[in-house]
């Protein structure tokens, strides 16, 4: 739980936000913004923009989750068994 005094003292764009315990949730808006910027120039038909963007965002997020799962299994299961 962030300190209320620290939250009140926070100056946007000057101070870092106190989200050290929930930093991984910030990857979701990052994936969405990457998809928006990329699909803005790459989608052949702009009418399909939002559908393509949401699909691409989901692919990025699933890819990150897959990498997380692979790293988790490698570090906690495979490497201890192997070493």
């Amino acid at each position, binding site marked *: 739980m962030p300190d209320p005094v620290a939250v009140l003292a926070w100056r946007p764009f*000057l101070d870092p936000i106190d989200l050290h315990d929930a930093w991984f949730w910030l990857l979701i808006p990052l994936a969405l913004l990457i998809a928006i910027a990329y699909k803005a120039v790459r989608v052949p038909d702009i*009418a399909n923009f939002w559908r393509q963007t949401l699909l691409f965002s989901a692919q990025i997020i699933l890819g990150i989750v897959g990498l997380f799962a692979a790293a988790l299994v490698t570090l906690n299961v495979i490497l201890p068994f192997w070493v």
Partner: protein
Amino acid sequence: MPPVVLAMRSLERPRDPTDPARMSEQTRQPHQHLPHGLDVPAGVCAMLFPGLGHFVRGEPRRAIYAAIGVLGMFLGGMLIGGIDTIDSREDKWWFYGQAFVGPLAFGADWYHQHQLKAYGIPYVRNENTGDEGYLTSDRELDPVRGPHRPRSLYPHERREMVEVTVFRGPGGKRETRTLPVAVPANTDAGEVGAPPNGKGIAKVNEIGTLYALCAGMLNLIVILDALFPTIRPKAKKAAPRASADRDNPAQPKPAPGSPGDPRVAAGEKEGGADA
């Protein structure tokens, strides 16, 4: 159909990239590469501001979406990690990627370097010469390797413009300069002031820096797309043909998949629709 026949038919097709039949195929098969043009003014505009190149090219929806994506990432990075995420001196390799956002990135970096950082010059007293105050030399103020170079302030410091005595060259020629210096915020009278910005650390700093870097990388794609625009089929070419069909119902129907096919015309319209 045997593969050999398909291959022969592909050899017989016209290679003109502006051919309507070829364009309609490309519309149905988005993985094929469409032809590219060159638009230098749009490329320059895209470098000045994210999405401006596409706006100049007459693609306002693409421009708005590109601007939302790039600016959202850049400003989001600064919101998460503070302005400390944009730092051409302490994070120069990251800044090389962030710089593709354009003048906005350089402006944020200039503000960070010149309005928020301060020289780490200590207040000293030289017992031999009797000098007292903020004393340093040109070599120590070197912006890259000097020990007193501009830096971010610690939580117990504040930024203050003070007169600094600088010794220049081997002869030690003395001159006085007014420089921003990091001075203690805690005095005998209590705490006075605070650092102008907070130093980003740990994951929040990494994520903020990553946001701004992704903004730069994505804007590079936007700039390249404005500079070398994809030539998409336009809907205007299909309109007269369709109206001619309506005006003359006795005209024989075109073969499926041919340039006169209304379904192909509809496909062209979707492919080139923007704004």
